[in-house]
């Protein structure tokens, strides 16, 4: 076989092997790896949970959550708690990759760099949702409000997706900087404001029993935010991890 055909064949092989299946397989591998490690150590979720409980307790004293104020501020308290606890999780999740050089290990693998982003982001989303799934009933019991409404769950899902997409992107930058732990919230929160605002307003709408017409604009903002930033992250992630 002449060398040119050889090269072409090789290229096609790479193309076929770098197909969607390989892409999804590597995403699944990263998610599995993060969950398996967390299942052993429980460090990340543990820290997020304890921190969330503390934040809610502090709010209890700071806002004197009596019945009337409680209804108005519940959604705000919840989202502030999730947002702060989330940065703990994001920092930890990326620090694991950076500290033992594992990020290099991921980059050495013949997978698309985006797969690394989606793998990490989906893992972080899982952690976030697990924490939320524990905090919600806790809050419900502590303050005697019913937080189990399908609408609210949808809002939390949409909010968490956007949060982890942007959060994973910015955390992978922050972790490579000298000032990393301090840097993440500073980078993350100003960019997150529209999402958090929409999430608070939509959650509040569901909790107070507003009409859907009033809640829909917020849901739309969240969907738009999620779509836009997942697309942006997809396009720029290469530049964050590649040297």
């Amino acid at each position, binding site marked *: 076989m002449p060398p040119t055909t050889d090269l072409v064949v090789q290229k096609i092989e790479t193309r076929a092997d770098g197909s969607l299946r390989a892409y999804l397989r590597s995403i699944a591998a990263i998610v599995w790896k993060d969950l398996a490690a967390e299942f052993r150590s429980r460090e990340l979720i543990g820290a997020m949970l304890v921190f969330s409980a503390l934040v809610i307790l502090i709010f209890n004293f700071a806002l004197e959550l009596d019945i009337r104020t409680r209804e108005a501020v519940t959604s705000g308290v919840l989202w502030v708690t999730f947002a702060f606890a989330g940065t703990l999780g994001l920092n930890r999740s990326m620090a694991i990759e950076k500290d033992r050089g594992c990020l290099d290990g991921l980059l050495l693998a013949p997978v698309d760099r985006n797969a690394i982003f989606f793998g990490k982001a989906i893992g972080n989303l899982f952690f976030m949702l697990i924490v939320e799934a524990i905090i919600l009933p806790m809050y419900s019991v502590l303050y005697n409000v019913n937080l189990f409404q399908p609408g609210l769950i949808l809002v939390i899902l949409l909010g968490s997706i956007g949060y982890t997409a942007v959060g994973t992107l910015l955390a992978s930058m922050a972790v490579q900087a000298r000032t990393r732990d301090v840097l993440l919230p500073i*980078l993350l929160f100003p*960019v997150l404001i529209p999402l958090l*605002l929409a999430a608070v307003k939509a959650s509040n709408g569901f909790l107070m029993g507003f009409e859907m017409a009033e809640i829909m604009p917020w849901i739309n*903002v969240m969907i738009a935010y999620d779509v836009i*930033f997942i697309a942006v992250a997809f396009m720029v992630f290469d530049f964050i991890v590649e040297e």
Partner: protein
Amino acid sequence: MERTPKALKVLTWLTSAVFIVALYLVLIWAPQEAIMGDVQRVFYFHVAAGWVGALAFLVTAIVGGIYLARGEQRWDRIAVASVEIGVVFTFINIVTGSIWARPIWNTWWTWDPRLVTATIMLLIYIAYIMLRQGIEDPDRRARFGAVYGIVGFISVPITFASIRIFRTIHPVVVGSSDPTALGAFDMNAEMRVAFFFSLFTFTLIYITLLWYRLRLQQQKEKIEERKLTALSS
């Protein structure tokens, strides 16, 4: 040390002259606004400063994209220079807005969409500068700066839109925070001239400052290089 290029000298003088004209137009030539009086004159430079802020950040996002595509250091230099200028002008924009709001809205600060968006934008670009300070490797610093410049810039209109929905759904009754309601006015022909001339002037100032800032950066890098060659020889 290199001397200032002639074109830059000319531009500097031109900008200064135009600025003096703008001052004249804004402070003396434009008619006094009937209801608000002289304090309305803040408006011209206020909007112009806001415009330069937004323009500067737009430039940062665009050259950031070009840097990522081509990897040439000079695009990154423009990005940093533009952010620094943008931060200063956005700050001017917020402060002048406050000065105007005090007599008109009867408060230094209100949670109006534009105001809040401008402030969040300022925070984003302060974060941008802090991000860069935390990274030693120049290539990585440039790449991260470009990414954050793009991400931040995209978030600004979404922020503005969502704060706007926030206000339209919840009409605030106490001391209406809607700028079109209180303190709105129609510009007459002369005001319009002063207004657009201010925009033009501030754009010139932006270009001039950007140029100086780029030269400063280049000279800094040259000094670094000479230090390195001096050390290694």
